[in-house]
């Protein structure tokens, strides 16, 4: 695996006993983009992230961050300097104060940016003298984010970062994540909150039951994905719509709902030639694509 992608995995698999938490996952996460990693609770997102970070070993398959294998101990230490993680283990160093933890972390990184740390601390209203263990969950997330961003990492990986945050803080977090690619950081974050992902992600990977079920660019989705509702005066000619671009067809009485990944024009043209009496074309949301994809995978 080369350095064409910031994160790449091939056939990555994790078994716990007979259960496959992640099964044959092949991911490609491009550089300098915000990629959302979507899936239901228990779909395998956290396990995947833990494997990427070397916190647990794959049962099978391989993966690379910035071209370096994820389970090579020597290389992974080197690579870890360029990768930041904001996730579950926010409890570490609970005995330190916010200020102490910031100084402590800064001492490990030559290119630490004190001005960024300072600016974020003020914005996030993190009290310098408070002990980390006394911070709320949301504040710990913000502190972890501060520690991550002040290093200007090449890859920033986050596991459900908005969990436990209030709406104002979520807004702040999303703004920060969206803007982070401007400094050359690749952002990869897992979430089950689709509306959040839809706002700031450039791309989305969807995982279900440990498998990758879809990968798409959101600009392409907005441009090309359509829900086409057709009405017919006679029983709808369902078979005729097995054409290019149709992802799914649902029929209810004389009405048909098609979901198209492209070729909406061609599909509408076909519908007209088959005497559709009503045609309605509407954009689709990421939620709709997600629900369709996850249902299809079952």
């Amino acid at each position, binding site marked *: 695996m080369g350095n064409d992608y910031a994160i790449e995995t091939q056939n990555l698999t994790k078994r716990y006993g007979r259960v496959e938490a992640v099964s044959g996952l092949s991911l490609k996460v491009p550089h300098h983009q915000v990629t959302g990693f979507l899936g239901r609770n228990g779909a395998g997102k956290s396990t995947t992230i833990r494997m990427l970070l070397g916190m647990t070993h794959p049962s099978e398959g391989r993966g690379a961050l910035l071209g370096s294998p994820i389970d090579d101990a020597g290389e992974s230490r080197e690579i870890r300097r360029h990768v930041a993680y904001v996730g579950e283990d926010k409890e570490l160093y609970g005995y330190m104060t916010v200020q102490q933890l910031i100084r402590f972390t800064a001492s490990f990184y030559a290119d630490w940016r004190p001005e960024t740390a300072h600016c974020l601390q003020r914005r996030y209203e993190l009290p310098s003298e408070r002990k980390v263990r006394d911070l709320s969950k949301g504040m710990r997330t913000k502190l972890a984010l501060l520690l991550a961003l002040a290093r200007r990492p090449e890859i920033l990986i986050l596991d459900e970062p908005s969990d436990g945050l209030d709406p104002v803080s979520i807004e702040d977090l999303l*703004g920060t994540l969206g803007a982070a690619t401007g400094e050359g950081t690749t952002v990869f974050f897992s979430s089950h909150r689709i509306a959040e992902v839809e706002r700031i992600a450039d791309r989305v990977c969807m995982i279900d039951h440990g498998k990758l079920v879809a990968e798409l660019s959101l600009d392409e989705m907005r441009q090309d994905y359509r829900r086409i509702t057709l009405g017919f005066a006679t029983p709808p000619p369902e078979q005729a719509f097995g054409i290019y671009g149709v992802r799914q067809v649902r029929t209810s009485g004389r009405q048909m709902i098609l979901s198209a990944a492209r070729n909406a024009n061609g599909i509408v043209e076909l519908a007209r030639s088959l005497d559709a009496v009503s045609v309605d074309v509407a954009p689709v949301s990421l939620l709709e694509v997600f629900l369709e994809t996850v249902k299809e995978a079952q």
Partner: protein
Amino acid sequence: MLFKLNPQAGQPLYLQLMQQVRHAVETGVLQRGDQLPGIRTLAEEIVVSHNTVAKAYSELEHEGLLEIRHGSGAFIAAKNRKGSRSERVRLAQERVHALVDALQQEGFSTEEIRRLLEAALFYPEQIETTR
């Protein structure tokens, strides 16, 4: 200048941003020499990916509407024909009002009219084929 993008509008976000800048220039809300926020600042403010704003700015620069001076920001470069343009926008608005009024009197609901207008704007090809 406030921009508001709709992630579910069925149009790439960078295109929405470009249209809003263009519209502001056409109406005179943004004028030659006015400064737009830096890419990073705007991305944070409207909560979108940096790449969305970067792409919109770069396309607008390509169109000659925006001038990006490195280190100092993005400036409106195009001359706006403000008086005449905003007058034309006002007249256009009147025509749209008249059209909507007429359709309502024919018994179309607000929702139906909205869909018809959206269809005309976003899927012109598909309407062509229906004739």
